Every structure is written in C-alpha cells, then in structure tokens.
C-alpha cells in the first residue's frame, strides 16, 4: 500500500510540473490559437532568474518568484510582439511554429551566455532535504509544495476566467476575436495579458522544479515537449484538461517505469499521445471544434 502511494506521489509531483507547463501553453492557445514553441525556454529562464534572485541575491523565495515571473512575463510579451504579431498580420499560415521556436533558441543561447552551460544547484525552499513519511510513503515537502502550488494556480486561473470581467473578455476573445472587438473589448490587450500570464506561469513552474531537476539551461527541451504532450492529451483550450493531462502523463510515466520493460519506456509518452489522438482527437477534456 505504502509502495503504491510512493509511486502515486512521485507521479503527481512530476505530473503537476507537466500540468503547469501545459497550462502555460493553454493560456496562450486559448486566446490566439497559437502554440508558443518557446514555452520550454520560458520555463528555463524562470528557473535561471529564480536562481539569481533566490540563490545568488538571497531574496525571500516569494519575492524571487514574483520577480522572475515579472521578467519572464515581459519576455512572453516579446514573443507576441516579435515572433507572432508581425507574422499573423501578414498571412494566415503556420510560420509562427518556426518563429516561436526560433525565439526559444535565441533565449536559450542568451541564457547560456549569462548563466553558463552547466546545471546549477538550487536549494529546496519548501522544507529541507528530510522527507516526510505519509502513510509509509516518503515524500519531500518540496514535492508536496509543487502539487499544492500547481493546483492553486489552476484554481486561481479558472476563477479568474469565470468570475471576473477580464476573464469574460478573455473567453469572448477566445470564442470570436472579431466579434469581441466589435463589442468593445480591446482584444489586443487581452492577448497581451494572456502572454504575460503564460510567462508568469512558466517562470513559477521553472522555479518549482529546479530543486528537483536543478536550474539547467537545457531543461526547457524536455519540459517543453512533456508539457506540449500534456496539453494535447488533456485537450487544447481547457485549463482543467491541461492540468489533468499533466497529472495523467506523470502517473503514466512513473507506473510504466515499474511495469513496462526498460526498452519500451521512452515510447510510452508518445504511444499515449497517439492513442488519445486516434480515439479522441480533441483531447480528454477538450471540446470538438
């Protein structure tokens, strides 16, 4: 029983990370139907800024997190301004796949110039190195913190979408940008705002995961791909779907590593992706378009 719980907790904590990345993809997709392929690099930048603010400068973790979220939010706005808007206005094609990806490459290499090329150790900021025993399963306070903060972010975001006037504007823009504009909603601001939130989420995610994976200039590749798979599995456009997609992916990874022979493990994530695409192309929680 405690063994099962150990695996579940492990799966949930890594799944929450994937879920947060998925959420940050989704916030942008919801309003613009664009997938920002530099999202993984925004997570990286969040982790590295967090390293500077928290580890190097010794600021309190919440201040460090807020500052990093601010920096990455600004960068996310730049993604919109530099990599998406000029192209979207010109033609209705898919050039943004390459332009956002290229933006990510530029971010990654700039980050390497500033922070170096090696992973940086990031102290656990929730609790210490001592694990807690939860019904016999051993779990780090940091891991419980990751799960809590991820769920909190999702909850707050959903509340914002459903209960505030800004949220309504976002939903209106997502539904039909032109009509929303005619109704007096400044859709440009709504879109800017979505990018900002997406960047902030990515930064928080990067800082949360750093004590477990270290702050690494190349961490964005894996997290970016896993987050993308999570958001597609969960259903593009649905916040709940993004988080559930992440959690499912985390649990599947951990359990498959115990059940499936080593040689097949790498394929599991993508087999799941393909299966979901075949059976329910809109994702587990997505609405068919």
């Amino acid at each position, binding site marked *: 029983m405690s*063994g099962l719980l*150990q*695996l579940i*907790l*492990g*799966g949930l*904590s*890594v799944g929450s*990370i994937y879920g947060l990345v998925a959420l940050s993809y989704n916030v942008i997709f919801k309003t613009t139907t664009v997938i920002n392929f530099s999202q993984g690099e925004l997570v990286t930048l969040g982790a590295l800024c967090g390293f500077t603010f928290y580890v190097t400068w010794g600021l309190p973790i919440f201040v460090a997190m807020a500052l990093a979220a601010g920096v990455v939010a600004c960068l996310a706005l730049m993604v919109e301004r530099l990599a998406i808007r000029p192209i979207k206005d010109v033609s209705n094609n898919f050039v943004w796949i390459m332009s956002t990806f290229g933006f990510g490459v530029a971010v990654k290499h700039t980050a*390497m110039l500033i922070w170096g*090329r*090696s*992973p940086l*150790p990031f102290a656990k900021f929730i609790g210490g*190195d001592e*694990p807690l025993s939860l019904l016999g399963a*051993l*779990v*780090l306070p940091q891991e419980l913190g990751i799960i809590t903060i991820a769920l909190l972010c999702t909850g707050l975001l959903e509340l914002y979408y459903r209960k505030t006037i800004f949220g309504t504007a976002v939903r209106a823009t997502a539904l039909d940008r032109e009509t929303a504009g005619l109704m007096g909603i400044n859709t440009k601001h709504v879109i800017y705002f979505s990018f900002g939130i997406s960047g902030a989420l990515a930064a928080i995610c990067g800082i949360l*995961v750093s004590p*477990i*994976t*270290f702050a*690494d*200039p*190349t*961490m964005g*590749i*894996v*997290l970016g791909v*896993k987050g993308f798979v999570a958001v597609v599995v969960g259903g593009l456009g649905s916040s709940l779907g993004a988080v559930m997609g992440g959690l499912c992916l*985390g649990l599947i*990874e*951990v*359990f498959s*590593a*115990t059940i499936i022979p*080593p*040689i097949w*493990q*790498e394929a599991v994530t993508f087999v799941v992706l393909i299966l979901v695409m075949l059976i329910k192309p809109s994702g587990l929680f997505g609405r068919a378009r």
Partner: protein
Amino acid sequence: MRGLKLGLALLLALGLSLSGGSALAADPIKIGMTGALSGPGSDLGLDALHGMEMAVKDINEAGGINGRPLKIISRDDQYDPSKAVTFAKELIHKEKVVAFFPSTATTPNLASEQVTLPGKVPHIIAGTTSDIVCPVGKCDPYAFRMAILNSWQGVALADFAVNKLKAKKIALLYDNTEYGRDGREMLMPPLQKLGVKPVYEGTFSLGDVSFTAQVKGAKDSGAEVMITWSLGAEVARIAMEKKKQQYDVPMLGSEAITMANFRSLGGAAAEGTYIADRMRAAYSNPDPNVKKFMERYLKEYKTDPKMAVPSWTITYYDAVVWLAQVLKKVGPDRAKVRDGLENSAPFIGVTGIKYAYGPGKHNAREPEAVAMVMVKDGKLVDPVIP
C-alpha cells in the same frame, strides 16, 4: 560621412596588418574537435577542450610544428548527434583538419564517426569510453582511442561490488543513450563471471524529472549495491531520490560521473559514491607531475579546486602532444599521420601515463588503468571501504 568611411577603411587595414604580425606567421595546421560543450556532459566536454588548449599553447610557444602553429577548431555539438555530424563534416571537408577529435559523448561520437571515418581522417577518441565506438581488435584503421573502455570499467565495478563490498544482490540503473546501454552490456559478463545476476534493472532518459519508480524498484528488489551508468546531473538526481526514499546502500558509477556537477548538484546525497575513473584520484596522488598539472589547470581555468578533476584534461593534453610529435615527424598528411600514430613508440604523458598503439591495437591504454575513486567531502579521493 566620406571621411568616416575612409577612417574605417584605414582602421581595418591597420588591424589586418597587425593581426598578421605574430611570431608564427605561417599557415596554421588545423585539428578539429567537437564536444558536448553545453548540455548534458558539458563539464567533461569543457575539461577536454581545456586540455587541448593547454597543449596547443605549449606546443606553439615551443615553436609549433616545424615552424607552423597548431590550431584547434572546436564546435559545441550539445550532445546532439545531428549537430555532431554537421560539425564533423564541416571540420573535415571544409576546414580540412589533419586530425579530428570526435565528440566527447558516445551518442554524437558514434553518429559522426559513421559518416566521417570512411573519409580517412585520423580520429582521436580521448573522451568517450563506450566500447562500441572503437571496439578492441575491431577498431577502424583510422580510429585511435586514448580513453579507457566501458568493458574495463565494468570489470572494475563488478569486482569492487562483489569482492570489496561483498554484495550478492545488485541493481543496475542506466540511461537509454548508447553510453548507458553500452555500459550495461559491458557490465553483464563480469557480473556473470562472479556468479551475480542483477536483481533489478531500471532505465531512464537524459533530462528525466522523476526517478521515483527506478529507485523504488531497486529498493524493493533488496539490492545491496546500486550501479549506475549515466551522466552527472542524472545520477545526482538518482542519488537524491535514493536518499529521499531512505534506501541506504552503497552506490557505484561509471567514469562519466567524475564530472563536477554530480558532486555540486548531488551534494550530501553524492557522498560515498564509488566511481571507476581513468586514473588514480588526483587529490590522493602524491606524484609531483600530477600536482604540477593540477595547479596549472586550476590557475588557467579558475575551476573550483574542490570540484576540479583533471583526468580528462590530462588525456586530451597528452593526445595533442603525442599528435604534435607525430606531425613533426611525418608532416600534415592524414594518411601519414595515421601510419605515424600506429607505428609510433609508446608515449609517456605529462603525468606519466603510458599510451601505446600498434597494428591492430588502437586502444592506447590497458585494462589495469582503471582506478576506483570515491566522493568524500565533495572531492574525489582514493576509495575507503567501510
């Protein structure tokens, strides 16, 4: 405006004439290198490049290769096989390097040598230890290895686990790159010879976030020793997960985790890990040659002295010095360099390590070269068995 342009042109001309005025004005002899200079394995990749730079500096200060300076052209393949192939082609066909040091990491090394070895350029493998890259007795005529081999490490690790640590149940954790898989293949025969079959095998990808399942699997199997075959950051994460799950058994690992980030990232969790290295731990080695090299390496590259491990830097230094000796004798011709290396007399490196090639013997070192080291207070030292 016109004046400005004229001024710029003048400055440019001046700059050009100045840059041509160094002591060794002749055309440089180029040697190529690609390595994982960022991303996974970058600690070792940079150590390698630094070793080459130190050697080239020494050689050029002493007059170069018969008056011509030696020049390294290096490329960062980021552990990416496709980048390694592109860069290898560029260095060999465009830059026309006379000898090529393929990637410091197995997967990119393997990918690029399949494309470039048929081009008949001497490949000097000073980093990668995977047997598959230059198998004993079956190595390509143009491939030469200065590094130790996974199969030798396998014997050393199996012997240490079974005979020194008295373990009967062993768990294996390795990554699913060519390096990890080659390591597993090389570890199995010596374990079998000692009558041990691993009770658990777990794999993972580089960059994986969660190691819960693999560590739990090893713990549940009741293994008394865990042997890992992967890179610094990944094994550091395994060590942290192992500590979290309070799975308190000795951990062993292959040479790659001598890289600094295993200790800097793993911290307390990395303590006590035993590693198969290519030479005795420099900190425990009283040899004045090793001390002298270590001091220079620290001074020129300002590495944290605690974290610094000069073994890769020494191998790459030796490799370039040996290559320079051969170049002086035979001239910058690829085929002649190959023959020169193969028929060269045994070479004694800067710290006294002996290397020898011969017809059909393209691995310069011997299985006995492998030395076990141990992490203690963040440093690598001679192993102590509890």
